[in-house]
């Protein structure tokens, strides 16, 4: 074999001389890698097929987490959606489900995500804008009207208020008479990422990790079909992180969460299979595919070697991928459909288990019905018309892709090593390390976009002279949403038993003071008494305090 590779290397040298290959222009990937004009088996000679690649659904899962991959069923297709009040959201969900979405990816508005009721002063301009408003169990009931919880899969982008939202979902299931073993969904439950890049945090890191682990424990013991973690690289990537940073920072955070679970006495073999991830990718197709393959291999080895997992299901890197809405442009917005399509292709070739897809009007507003449908069609056409779903990891064996996979793995491990040396994710975040790296990359990206080093068609390349501002119809925020929501909130408060609420909140606060108590049951009690989200968060804030960010530009 080595002999053969040596021959190839020699022939390549000859080819380079004969064809004057050295005078070809250089080419760099998005990660800045110098790419050769052609790759050969000699470029991947250290790779052992059975050790490093193997078969899909088998350790180290480089080629995919399931044996059949998309042959069985394409990736799950969703659109992140929610706006206005629960009724508005319920209506949009029914439309998406009828069009072929497999479940709902729940968008909650910023007040809800930050633990504020719709009547809070800071909520006034934000109710129902970026998601649905949820203040009490009543909102959850309306949101899921006509959608029995054993027939729908709900993915919640909730972090700081995750314990409250899962308490509400459980309370709703119990009211519907649906067994808890039958409800399925995913919870993000990922605060470190919020501290780094998204800002939807409430409490400081210690209490956040306790709450996250309460969710993990409750789900592991009671909700077998729920994924209590959906650890996100997407947020950091969309804030500017490079591919390598996206995976490295996410895994550093994940290590902290797994460790917290283990410290709580939970077994990695039990909760490992219920951890999931969420990444973003752009259009640098082969490098993104290599990123996903390397990530699977790294995660499998990590869970096995560092945490001692023995069940293969605990070692799977199940992930949702999304096209990067941050690369969409307001000029000639129809081009974003194509950007999205290539990104979907990269995610599919990379073996994602599910995809959320940004609609073409992402630079302007949240989607309309029309653009939401087109986003779904983008995925469906890839899955059903291109044939790429017939076999697992179709790019496996490409000399270029295997080379990139190895390089990606080395770079990611190196970055993870740096964070280990700092003392882990929590330390790195306190020191502002992740935040600074991300801000630097975002700045660099914008510079490259300006100079044209990063070509953006229609913007810095082949730009047309006439004004690029679009004449599209955008989603219009309903100005009545806030008032309608506050009305429902007031009604719920008027109809409840104030003494029961007071008791439930006191019990919640008591439980919060005791680190050995899982807070989900007291939250369910408070939810059933129609305590509001804001009241429950206030009770917890009184015990845990609030997080103050280190400002890093």
């Amino acid at each position, binding site marked *: 074999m080595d002999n053969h590779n040596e021959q190839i290397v020699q022939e390549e040298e000859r080819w380079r001389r004969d064809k004057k290959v050295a005078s070809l222009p250089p080419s760099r990937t998005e990660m800045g890698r110098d790419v050769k004009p052609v790759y050969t088996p000699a470029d991947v000679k250290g790779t052992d097929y059975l050790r490093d690649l193997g078969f899909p659904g088998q350790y180290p899962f480089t080629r995919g987490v399931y044996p059949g991959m998309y042959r069985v069923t394409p990736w799950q297709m969703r659109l992140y959606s929610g706006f206005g009040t629960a009724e508005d959201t319920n209506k949009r969900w029914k439309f998406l489900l009828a069009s072929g979405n497999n479940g709902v990816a729940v968008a909650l508005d910023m007040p809800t995500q*930050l633990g504020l009721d719709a009547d809070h002063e800071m*909520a006034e*301009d934000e109710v129902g804008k970026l998601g649905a408003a949820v203040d009490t169990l009543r909102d959850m009931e309306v949101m899921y009207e006509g959608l029995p919880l054993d027939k729908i899969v709900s993915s919640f982008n909730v972090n700081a208020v995750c314990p409250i939202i899962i308490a509400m979902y459980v309370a709703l299931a119990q009211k519907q008479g649906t067994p808890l073993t039958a409800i399925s969904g995913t919870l993000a439950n990922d605060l470190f990422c919020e501290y780094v890049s998204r800002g939807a945090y409430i409490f400081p890191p210690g209490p956040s990790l306790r709450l996250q682990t309460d969710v993990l424990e409750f789900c592991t013991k009671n909700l077998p079909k729920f994924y209590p973690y959906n650890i996100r690289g997407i947020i950091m990537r969309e804030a*500017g992180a490079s591919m390598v940073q996206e995976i490295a920072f996410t895994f550093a955070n994940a290590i902290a969460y797994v460790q917290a679970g283990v410290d709580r006495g939970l077994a990695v073999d039990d909760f490992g299979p219920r951890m999931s991830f969420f990444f973003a990718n752009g259009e640098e197709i082969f490098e993104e595919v290599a990123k996903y393959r390397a990530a699977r291999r790294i995660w499998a080895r990590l869970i096995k070697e560092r945490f001692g997992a023995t069940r293969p299901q605990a070692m799977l890197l199940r992930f949702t991928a999304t096209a990067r809405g941050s690369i969409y442009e307001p000029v000639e917005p129809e081009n974003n459909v194509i950007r999205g399509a290539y990104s979907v292709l990269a995610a599919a070739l990379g073996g994602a288990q599910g995809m959320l897809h940004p609609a073409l009007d992402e630079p*302007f507003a949240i989607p309309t019905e029309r653009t939401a449908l087109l986003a779904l069609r983008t995925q469906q056409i890839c899955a059903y018309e291109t044939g790429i779903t017939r076999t697992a990891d179709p790019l496996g064996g490409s000399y270029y892709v295997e080379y990139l996979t190895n390089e990606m793995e080395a770079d990611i491990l190196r970055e993870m090593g740096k964070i280990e040396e700092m003392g882990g994710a929590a330390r790195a975040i306190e020191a502002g390390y992740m935040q600074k790296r991300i801000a630097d990359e975002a700045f660099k990206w914008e510079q490259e*976009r300006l100079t044209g080093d990063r070509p953006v068609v229609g913007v810095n390349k082949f730009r047309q002279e006439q004004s690029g501002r679009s004449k599209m119809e955008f989603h219009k925020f309903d100005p009545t949403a806030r008032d309608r929501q506050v009305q429902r909130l007031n009604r719920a408060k008027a109809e409840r038993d104030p003494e029961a609420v007071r008791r439930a909140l006191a019990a919640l606060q008591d439980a919060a003071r005791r680190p050995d108590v899982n807070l989900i049951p007291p939250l369910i009690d408070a939810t059933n008494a129609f305590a509001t989200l804001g009241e429950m968060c206030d009770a917890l804030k009184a015990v845990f305090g609030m997080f103050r960010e280190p*400002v890093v530009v």
Partner: protein
Amino acid sequence: MPQKSVATRHSPLRVLIAKVGLDGHDRGAKVVARFLRDAGMEVIYTGLHQTPTQVVQSAIQEDVDVVGLSFLSGAHIGLTRKVIEELKAQGVADKPVVVGGTIVDDDIEALKALGVAGVFPVGTPAPEVVDAIRRFGAQRVA
């Protein structure tokens, strides 16, 4: 009433970049802040979750020449109105306000009608933002 210091041609323009409201998308705000610093201005970035009152307090305390607000939350009209009203209430309405983020065309007009000096929707090249801020800041000082 704090002494209003006038930025002369020789002292750098001071710009406040603020994330007002609940929105945590800060990539654009931070990138603009970097470009402004590279262009020689002094930038104060407030961090997240500022109330309109806090923004105006910072603008006064830091004695800025321009106030920049960043929104990727859809809350730009209501919150910008509150900031501008508070600037007026505090007697510093001469500080020009600029707004950036996910802003549709109709809203650009609405913001200008509120008194916003410049609107920079997603995709606006950073140098354009820098030039505009320099102009607005110089006009205010002149």
